[in-house]
């Protein structure tokens, strides 16, 4: 590419052309996943007469949106080269706290806000310990998982906390999951592409010393990202609480956070950091949700489902790895 060409391109570089450029890039990066998703839909439509159904697609979108809420945050966390395994526990703790406050007669808005602040505080604690004490994210958030899980049991005494107010329910129930999930995704996309935050996060994940030398407040950014992740876990928890009509102390134990972690990676974000592919994360969530529903509807027994999900996760990533590799060669 010659300099002249570059200049014409950049002088016409407006917001709109940025978006076009972004979409082109996204398609190039994720076509493997798109193909995989279409293939899944086709296969399930053939294996079950019940699959092609508005209700099913609605469910898939809702389920994907649920995972998306936390997976969006996780995308940012792993972009910095970190990981947060405490999200499931944060989700349960904050839901139980908010529900307990509601059961004590507090209006749902302050109750939910307190839970949200608590979640962000848990995230901030994670981020601070990781940053300022230079500890590994995995082990810090693992310890946090135990702490939060323990607190949840202590507060709830092991039983679901009921008395969820109607206001709370309608704010987080049903289609609101989709609204919340996609708003968070789009908001994050805008922030990542239109502000310096995205570049700084990728900078930290790509090379922390470089970012430090360039004057990026590395530690502060990290605290911020983990706080956002904490707050998002809370929102995910609220949607779960609203749909259960109770705060379950055992919510978020395994599949919920594992999928929130798997989705970004399926979507081409790397654990090593330095990359943010939010569209990929969305594709990861959709793939997982489609797979689960499709297998359920096709009547595949749970043991075979486990095997199938394992295989599909591996193949989705394999396709991604191979398409990326081919491009590089």
């Amino acid at each position, binding site marked *: *590419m*010659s*300099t002249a060409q*570059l*200049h014409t391109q*950049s*002088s*016409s*570089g*407006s*917001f709109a052309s*940025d978006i076009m450029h972004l979409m082109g890039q996204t398609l190039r990066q994720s076509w493997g996943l798109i193909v995989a998703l279409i293939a899944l839909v086709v296969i399930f439509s053939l294996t079950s007469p019940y699959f092609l159904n508005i209700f099913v697609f609605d469910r898939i979108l809702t389920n994907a949106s649920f995972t998306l809420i936390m997976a969006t945050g996780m995308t940012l966390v792993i972009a910095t080269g970190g990981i947060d395994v405490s999200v499931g526990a944060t989700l349960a703790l904050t839901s139980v706290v908010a529900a307990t406050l509601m059961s004590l007669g507090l209006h749902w808005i302050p109750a939910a806000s307190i839970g949200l602040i608590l979640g962000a505080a848990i995230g901030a604690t994670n981020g601070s310990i990781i940053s300022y004490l230079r500890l590994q994210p995995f082990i810090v958030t693992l310890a946090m998982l135990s702490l939060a899980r323990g607190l949840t049991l202590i507060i709830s005494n092991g039983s679901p906390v009921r008395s969820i107010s109607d206001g709370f329910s309608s704010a987080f129930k049903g289609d609101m999951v989709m609204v919340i999930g996609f708003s968070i995704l789009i908001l994050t996309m*805008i922030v990542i*592409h*239109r*502000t*310096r935050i995205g*570049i*700084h996060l*990728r*900078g930290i*994940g*790509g*090379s922390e*010393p*470089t*970012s*430090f*030398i*360039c*004057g*990026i407040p590395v530690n502060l950014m990290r605290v911020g990202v983990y706080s956002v992740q904490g707050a998002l876990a809370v929102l995910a928890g609220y949607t779960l609480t609203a749909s259960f009509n109770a705060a379950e102390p055992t919510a978020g134990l395994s599949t919920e956070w594992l999928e929130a972690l798997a989705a970004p990676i399926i979507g081409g974000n790397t654990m090593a*950091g*330095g*990359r943010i592919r939010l569209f990929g994360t969305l594709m990861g969530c959709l793939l997982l949700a489609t797979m689960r529903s499709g297998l359920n509807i096709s009547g595949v027994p749970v043991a075979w489902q486990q095997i199938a999900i394992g295989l599909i996760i591996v193949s989705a990533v394999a396709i991604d790895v191979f398409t990326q590799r081919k491009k590089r060669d």
Partner: protein
Amino acid sequence: MLDAIISAKNIHKHYAGTHALSDVDFEIRSGEIVGLIGENGAGKSTLMRIICGIEHPSTGTLTVRGKPTEFSGPHAAQADGIAMIPQEVLLVDELTVVENIFLGHEISGATGLSKAKMRSAAQEILDELDCTHIAPTQLTGSLPKGSQQMVAIARRVMQGGAIFVMDEPTSSLTGSETEALFRLLRKLKARGKSSVFISHRLEEMLEICDRIVVLRDGKLVGDFPNDGLLTKDVLVSSMVGSDMADEFSRKISEKGDVILEAKNIAVRTFQGRKTPTISFKARSGEVVGITGLAGVGKTELAHVLSGLREPVSGDICLHGKVTKLTSPVTALKNKIGLVSDDRRSEGLVLGMAALANMTFTSLRKYLGLLGVNRKAEHAMGLSMTKKLSMKPEYLARDANLLSGGNQQKVVIIRQLCSESEVLLMDEPTKGIDIGAKSEVYQLVGNLVAEGKTAVLFSSEPQEILGVCDTIFVLTDRSFFGPYARGDLDYAKLMAIEFGTVDTESMTKETINEYQ
């Protein structure tokens, strides 16, 4: 006399086990270019890191524009207009060139980031540095090291300030890139800005610097105004503490059989261009030099010969037999070893001790009854460090805590002590001080005298002309050679590299000689 913008007094710096700096006084005045030289590990980078707020001195004071100052971190120094381009290029590989250039200093408009504005500004500064081949939207990690260095320089300039500290920027730059950099330094100087410039190439220092400061073993041993009378010899003896004989001297030995032969090999350069076909023979007892401008494909050729990538066409013959080198594993099996030009990402395991880095390919030699015999391993390390004038305590230190030059020595030592017959060395003396350089050449000479072969890939004409028995020149259009030692001089070599000689006749001459 000009005012000192920053002056450091009685600076000491201790690390666990080392005294990196002791009692150093150093100042930078406005509008001057200060040169800083010294052997590897003398403390140059450490001193600069302290001046730029990246590290704190153990004791000593910094005064900035007359005010005693203690920098809390690099951003504090940056706020005072002082920042550096570190020795090991610090860029984020996963970010694009623009993003790297503006990292931490992004421009925002009403609707968020002004990407177009940044792109054109980046393009401008790259143009100013003569880097038209770098596209601002390219991923930085995909750029060659030299271009990365230029991006780092562009970033530094873009961020502005009063003092530009550059730690060995030219060790990965080519002639023309260096010239572009010097033009920039002069321009900055004309604007009243100051620079600190570190390099092991003393000619460069004499060309660009107003004043040259010498460090030895953490102490300041000389401060010479560059008044036109200053010579390289004065600098060398101040640096090393004694005079030095010819730096390129090595044992010259009898040539034996052809060990390695490249037959009509073409490789693809990282820019996607195909090189002309390359054919050469390397005999035992011979040091073959392959030179050419940056980006012509020397590194890729070295990669092909060491099995790291496949050639577009052509064959490799070992001992007269066509051999397919499918991976570095087969290369190692065929006793071919490579000293990579990228020590940080390909040459070293940074988190591992220097000794372990030296021995991991030859560890089998030290196997005893109870596994690896650490004593024997250590003894080998000691003997090699002695030969390359490294301190013995470096052996136990993690590679990333060594000074840049010493890291490079570790990479070379690994190849020297593995049993390779063919030693491919891609820019092996990058960042090594002048004394160690001559030691490396001598060691290579000794190895070759034992019947081995060395192929030196280098864009440094002096090195190629001084060290090699046989020289080939790779250009965009053709592969020239062989030239015996003495056939070429600097002027002729340049003429070939830049294509200003009658290449028709040269090519014919080459082919005739070759057959």
